[in-house]
């Protein structure tokens, strides 16, 4: 019997010769059949679909490239892994093996860093919500506490007084860097004098060691110049402290917020072509610091809390086609088994999505929906996709940041996360949830234990 041809669903498409694509954008239908040498189909068979896949090799490569960008421009650089971006232990430990400290924003994340084996002195404690217990622990461990508001400052002074310990602190400074929206809800404002006021309170109080200055100006920043302005303003504050008190701050922490290669919704061109590179941010920050008037005996340590730009590209989501439908206006829609419950970032980005098997060159404009019975569950509003069949696999790219921390246990359970090591061997780093995961946390009052219908 003759071999049958591969079936592709029938397609006819009107040729729109009057609407050329002025940007000459390539449609993303080149298949990605393997991730780090492992077949996507094999990963889905072995670990299920949907599935998060993280490339350890890629994380290390991104980290080393970023480190080199800064260290080739400035003598003293330290990265601190932003736990909220992805706090799976295996991921954190790759960064810690590379030399990253930990940057945490809650008591939970602080404890996680301690559980991961991080020395307290190498934990940066940010965030507006630090309980008294959290602060006492951080003070005892000599962690670097970044004060967010005056209530926290006074609480720390009280702890210092009571325990006779000297907390190592910095203040978080918010400021106008020429970008919109300006983040002013965290820390103390530079322009209206709040930051200077907080610094004076610390220095006059004499109970805490002012070791650094911190800022975090925004998220997914597309303007390196905003960082240059921020670095100048922090250096200016450091200089004023030096002038007034003869005290040198030991570090300047520029926070995070560097954009990754993702494409923000509404952008005309793909992020991979237009977003600034780590080199652009490094050049802006280090130049501003070195050009400032702040001249301590030892150059301040430059701390970076980069999260997204170091992990986004290392994360992939494998998803399967559940069904194809046609909408009332004739548009094609495809339902995937991964939706906004797992891909929180699809609210922000037009994720690059590629099929995981070979296709012909025919494509259809498609709406990609997730599996939830909720209207908001849209993975891509409009994407040119090959003619996918039920059961086909797709790879969703650049999903390493925030998805594995902001994902929701909503309507369905969360899947496995697999990390592929540099030798190409996959390891489960987080198991899938089961009914027990959810029900073990619940308790039923006796009077609600039974019912009859």
């Amino acid at each position, binding site marked *: 019997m003759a071999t*049958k041809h591969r079936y592709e669903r*029938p*397609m006819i498409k009107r040729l729109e010769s009057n609407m050329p694509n002025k940007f000459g954008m390539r449609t993303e239908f080149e298949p990605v059949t393997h991730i780090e040498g492992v077949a996507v189909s094999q990963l889905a068979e072995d670990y299920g679909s949907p599935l998060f896949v993280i490339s350890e090799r890629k994380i290390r490569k991104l980290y080393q490239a970023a480190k080199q960008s800064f260290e080739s421009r400035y003598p003293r650089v330290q990265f601190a892994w932003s736990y909220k971006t992805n706090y799976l232990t295996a991921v954190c430990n790759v960064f810690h093996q590379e030399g990253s400290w930990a940057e945490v924003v809650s008591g939970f994340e602080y404890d996680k860093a301690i559980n991961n084996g991080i020395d307290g002195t190498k934990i940066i404690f940010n965030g507006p919500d630090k309980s008294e217990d959290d602060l006492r622990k951080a003070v005892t461990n000599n962690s670097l506490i970044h004060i967010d508001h005056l209530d926290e400052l006074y609480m720390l002074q009280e702890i210092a007084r009571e325990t006779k310990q000297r907390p190592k602190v910095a203040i978080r400074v918010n400021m106008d860097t020429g970008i919109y929206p300006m983040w002013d809800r965290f820390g103390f404002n530079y322009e209206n004098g709040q930051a200077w006021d907080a610094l004076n309170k610390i220095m006059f109080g004499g109970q805490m060691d002012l070791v650094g200055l911190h800022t975090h100006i925004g998220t997914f920043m597309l303007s390196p110049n905003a960082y240059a302005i921020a670095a100048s303003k922090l250096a200016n504050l450091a200089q004023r402290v030096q002038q007034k008190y003869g005290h040198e701050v030991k570090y300047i922490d520029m926070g995070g917020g560097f954009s990754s290669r993702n494409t923000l919704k509404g952008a005309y061109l793909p992020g991979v072509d237009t977003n600034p590179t780590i080199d652009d941010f490094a050049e802006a920050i280090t130049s501003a610091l070195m050009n400032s008037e702040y001249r301590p005996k030892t150059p301040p340590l430059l701390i970076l809390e980069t999260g997204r730009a170091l992990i986004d590209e290392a994360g992939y989501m494998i998803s399967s086609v559940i069904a194809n439908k*046609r909408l009332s206006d004739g548009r094609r829609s495809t339902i995937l088994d991964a939706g906004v419950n797992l891909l929180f970032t699809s609210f922000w980005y037009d994720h690059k999505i590629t099929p995981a098997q070979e296709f*012909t060159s*025919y494509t259809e404009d498609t709406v990609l929906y997730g599996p939830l019975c909720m209207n908001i569950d849209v993975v891509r509003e409009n994407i040119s996709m090959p003619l996918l*069949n039920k059961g086909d696999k797709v790879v969703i790219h650049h999903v390493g940041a925030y998805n594995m921390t902001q994902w929701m246990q909503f309507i369905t359970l969360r899947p496995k996360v697999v990390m592929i090591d540099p030798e190409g061997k996959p390891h489960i780093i987080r198991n899938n949830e089961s009914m027990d995961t959810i029900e073990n946390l619940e308790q039923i009052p006796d009077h609600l234990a039974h019912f009859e219908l």
Partner: protein
Amino acid sequence: MKIKNNIAVSDNGFVFNPGSGESYTANQVGLDMLNMLRKGEKSAAIISFIAEKYEADPAVIEKDLNDFSETLKQYHLSQHEEL
């Protein structure tokens, strides 16, 4: 379903409607279905032909043929059905 008589279809899937001046492109499975519809073949014969030529389940082919026929109607490539 019948396809309009004046629709021109090339061997490589280029479709032209001289009535509207619109051009279309079809993939191989679409081309096979379109050519059989032009010959006036019934759904059952088309499904059986496609199932013989391609690796696909007849139920899937039937679903896709219905969807394809709807698209042809939307593009005004089919004749008005007699009521």
